[in-house]
């Protein structure tokens, strides 16, 4: 009946809806483009946020991972120094430029990430913003305006555009909805005369085919980031093998069952003439798909139990052991080694206080040679006896590359034994063959916000600089937390370094010399006290081998 409505009116309405959609899309696009035409300092701010904010605070008077940058223009050498420094600071340091070396020393020899993709114009923009920045004048704590920064106009503009984009999005959503509703109520028939059963049947098949292609394609996109194929530990390799075996089974089941489902949905979509088959039961079929999965699962269970038992069983006595204790706390790890006696001093949380971070029994002999390190240093080939504790809430020790995970439970010590099979250096070598890690560092940012390239003709980055640092050279094993433990949960990082046995022994020898008292003091950064490992600094040792100083 509704079809009888005036065709002309329908056409007009349809066109209106189309126009509306197109118009809104245009507005959205303009909204995105809008950012590109903002003032220099505003661009600088955006660039800063994108490139520098990882380490430098946007509140320039504050230091973060990197130093505070307020008034940096007055401090730094004039001329092109700043361009060279930002594009590749390590190079400037190696050239022995005095101010660069001074900065490096002042910042614990931490290297700044090279930014070869930034053009001189970009850097000018960033400096323009830094120079224009006004620190907030003693903001009252808790005051809503405490985040006032300089250059409010630019800030306001940025916010405005965010707002616009968000609003436009909301409006589109709203309008499409309203349009659909009005159209329906007024009798406009979408998909008028279309056989919905046929359409849905086709969509079912289309969805599955498209979905499969998308799944395969997107797997390719993320393949390089999977860590589940080259475990750096003995048991990890077993787990990986089991994982991929299971994967074969799972993919087979996933594809077969989904294909049948969507194929049947397509094939048997409603067709007025067909009589559905009365087929309520088939005992034999039921048996097949009870027994076959049962058999497959039996195999998986047996393999699983075998692997799990071997991972969890007591370590092989014939191998050398190394012990290290990982103490979780909000929000970090304290890493303690037993020292020369190979015994840890006892811990009791009631003793925590002052210099005694862990509550170690200071009078016991075992405690005297215990020492704490900045990074988790492991010995390749030995059985690593990871003793796990927590002093406050639950944490979980997670060494992704070693397939190690075990909760840290206050009041209950847990353990994990494993053997590291690759040193950090060996793993870096392995990553040379990985599509992502074999690339030049920071290649990913060369994407450079396509619109920026489009709006300026100046793409001028120095290729001679960027071909020097490969990603794998900066790779490090890491220790993370996987049990939610409060606000800092996402940032409980420790670097993990695996050394050849002889390197490790030499390092351990030196490290044990230090007295426990020193090791336990919180005001002394253990990394200052202990033999420094080149290449174990935060930003990594670039190409240098890991060697003892």
């Amino acid at each position, binding site marked *: 009946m509704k079809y009888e409505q005036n065709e002309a009116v329908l056409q007009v309405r349809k066109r209106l809806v189309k126009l509306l959609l197109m118009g809104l899309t245009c507005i959205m696009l303009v909204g995105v483009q809008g950012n590109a035409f903002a003032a220099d300092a505003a661009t600088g701010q955006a660039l800063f946020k994108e490139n520098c904010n990882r380490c430098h605070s946007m509140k320039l008077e504050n230091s973060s991972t990197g130093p505070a940058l307020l008034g940096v223009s007055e401090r730094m050498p004039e001329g092109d120094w700043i361009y060279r420094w930002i594009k590749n600071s390590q190079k400037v340091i190696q050239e022995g430029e005095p101010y660069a070396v001074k900065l490096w020393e002042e910042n614990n020899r931490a290297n700044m990430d090279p930014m070869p993709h930034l053009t001189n114009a970009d850097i000018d923009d960033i400096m323009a913003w830094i120079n224009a920045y006004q620190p907030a004048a003693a903001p009252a704590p808790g005051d809503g305006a405490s985040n006032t920064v300089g250059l409010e106009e630019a800030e306001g503009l940025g916010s405005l555009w965010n*707002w616009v984009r968000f609003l436009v999005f909301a409006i589109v959503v709203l309008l499409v909805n309203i349009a659909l509703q009005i159209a329906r109520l007024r009798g406009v028939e979408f998909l008028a005369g279309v056989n919905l059963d046929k359409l849905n049947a086709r969509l079912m098949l289309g969805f599955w085919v498209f979905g499969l292609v998308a799944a395969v394609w997107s797997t390719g996109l993320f393949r390089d980031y999977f860590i589940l194929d080259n475990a750096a530990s003995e048991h990890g390799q077993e787990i990986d093998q089991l*994982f991929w075996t299971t994967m074969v089974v799972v993919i087979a*089941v996933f594809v077969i069952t989904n294909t049948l489902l969507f194929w049947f949905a397509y094939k048997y979509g409603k067709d007025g003439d067909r009589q559905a088959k009365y087929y309520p039961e088939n005992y034999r079929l039921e048996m097949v798909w009870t027994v076959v999965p049962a058999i497959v*699962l039996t195999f998986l269970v047996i393999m699983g139990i075998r692997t799990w038992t071997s991972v969890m069983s007591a370590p092989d006595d014939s191998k050398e052991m190394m012990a290290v204790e990982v103490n979780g706390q909000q929000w970090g790890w304290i890493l303690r080694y037993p020292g020369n006696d190979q015994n840890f001093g006892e811990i009791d949380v009631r003793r925590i206080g002052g210099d005694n971070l862990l509550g170690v029994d200071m009078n016991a002999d075992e405690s005297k040679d215990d020492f704490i390190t900045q990074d988790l240093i492991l010995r390749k080939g030995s059985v690593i006896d990871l003793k796990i504790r927590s002093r406050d*809430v639950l944490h979980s020790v997670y060494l992704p590359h070693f397939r190690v995970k075990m909760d840290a439970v206050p*009041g*209950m010590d847990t353990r994990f034994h494993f053997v590291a099979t690759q040193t950090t250096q060996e793993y870096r070598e392995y990553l040379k063959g990985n599509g*992502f890690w074999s690339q030049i560092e920071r290649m990913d940012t060369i994407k450079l916000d396509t619109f920026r390239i489009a709006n300026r003709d100046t793409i001028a980055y120095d290729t001679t600089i960027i071909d020097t640092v490969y990603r794998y050279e900066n790779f490090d094993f890491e220790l993370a937390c996987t049990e939610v433990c409060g606000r800092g949960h996402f940032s409980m990082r420790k670097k993990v370094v695996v050394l050849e046995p002889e390197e490790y022994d030499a390092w351990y020898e030196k490290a044990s010399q230090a007295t426990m008292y020193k090791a336990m003091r919180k005001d002394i950064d253990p990394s200052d006290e202990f033999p420094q490992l080149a290449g174990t600094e935060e930003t990594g040792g670039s190409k240098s081998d890991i060697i003892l100083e």
Partner: protein
Amino acid sequence: MSDQAITLNKTGYGDNGHGHGGHDHHDDHHPKPTFWNTYVFTMDHKTIGKQFLFTGIFMAMVGLFMSVIFRLQLAFPDTELPFLESIIGKWGEGGKMDANFYLALVTMHGTIMVFFVLTAGLSGTFSNFLIPLQVGARDMASGFMNMLSYWFFFLSCTIMIASIFVTGGPAGGGWTVYPPLSVLESANPGSGLGMDLWLTSMAFFIVSSLLGSINYITTVLNLRTKGMSMTRLPLTIWAFFLTAVIGTLSFPVLLAAALLLLMDRNFGTSFFLSDVYIGGEALSNEGGSPILFQHLFWFLGHPEVYIVLLPALGMTSEVISTMSRKPIFGYRAMVGSMMAIAVLSFVVWAHHMYVTGMNPWLGTVFMLLTLIIAVPSAVKAFNYITTLWQGNIKFTSAMLFSIGLVSLFISGGVTGIFLGNAAIDIPLHDTYFVVAHFHLVMGSAAAFGFFAGVYHWFPKMFGRMMDRKLGMLHFWLTFASVYCVFFPMHFMGMGGVPRRYYAFSAFQFTGHEAYIDLSIFITVAAILGVFGQGIFLLNFLNSIRRGKKAPMNPWNANTLEWTTPVNPGHGNWPGKIPQVYRWPYDYSKPGIKHDYFPQHIPDDDPNWVEGVPEPVTEPAVKPEPQPEVVVSSED
């Protein structure tokens, strides 16, 4: 009429023939219908079901909205989003979300979705609405307890929502509220008043759930109409029944855990605390074990997964059979596998705890039991697929969501084979792989079951039809969105990215820019999905008032609820309750004149059965003239 009703109604309710149940014996007079006793403190199972439905939808909006907010943080960790401040106030100062509030949002999203939407909203709605209608009862065994069940749920919702607004924010230790984080306010500001409210709310929720479950079990066991043996129950009822049994046995354990946690928090006990140093001092608590709480929690927590999923599977069985115009394949196997799942669900809980420091030997036992559960699940999936085979599929909105559910159930289920394996769980535990797994198999699949239920039984609930085309749009948008959101999360899981991370920038292995791009993609897909739910909401609300009037049996289905009037009154059937002659899945049966054969039609009805001579006497119930399957907007 009155005496007939009494003979049919096995409980021996006095049925006075006016069609109301016998539960209001405390009042000899039929209470005068007022606004309050009709819509608010009602004891009618249908209205209570709708109350659960509306509350569930409201809670779902809250839960979904929260997920959008925290997805924004994950996609744009470095961007200032000024509108955040206007939505979440001090937690989003300067357009940057507070890390504690991120955790609070994740926690509340989980809590609300699992308990308030997928447990109460799904099971509460459809168990209440469908059990009496499908077993042929006038109402629930106890209308009063049923009313209490809803109002305890309402109270629980109110407290949970209120907890969002207290100083310190709502609970923020994950929906599993593991101590000691959930005990110590100095460890997490959400563990203050917010956590107390969380626990109080959950206590009321459990009371509500138990009142409901006991009612469902009693009604199914005792109030079935004549001829409705257990083996003739629709699979929906089997699912609701088993769900209620699981809930009755497992929820009390969570209540115990919640009370013990409340005592640890407020009365200085040490059930879950030992050797804790926090806020600059060592606590005096000693001897407790945080692991104990995890055992208690997961003893409910894992069965809870099936509490959420079984009703969805039950309703889907009904829809798939009806819309394929075929009997559900392997009815007995379907019931058997649901029973197996129900039993096994109690003995797999520790697979959430492989790496908590639990005795590794336990890990092997739980691995074995966990992987066994894949067998009945596989049977169910294959039976669904075989039901489609050689059917004559009508793609109603409910059917679309049912097929979607089967796909999600498979895709999310298979990854359980990784996670159930203790060895493989070591690298995957608490990563995005887990997030992907349970959102597909439990969250989305159950939500799809919920939608299938709403679309399918909407005509019975409101006497009108929902719009089919909007339903279709809703389905495809939601289906695509769900896969776009959760499928790529497997990639992050295989990259080792842990869940509940406020940002991914602190680590090299999580900090890949590709993951930021992926997060943006997921967030956009999620927002589009939420937009899809807006379409549903509009369609739903609009159809209640303006939808096309529904016929009595719009899907040509066999079950008893379609023998009630379009708008069934109190007591469901104006006359006597129909008798049942067969199982509910005789679709396209040879020798039957129509492609369905309702449960209440006698075997010798010449209007239905071929070869039966015209009757000398009148048939018990005259079949109404049946058009081809009637579907909403087309006519």
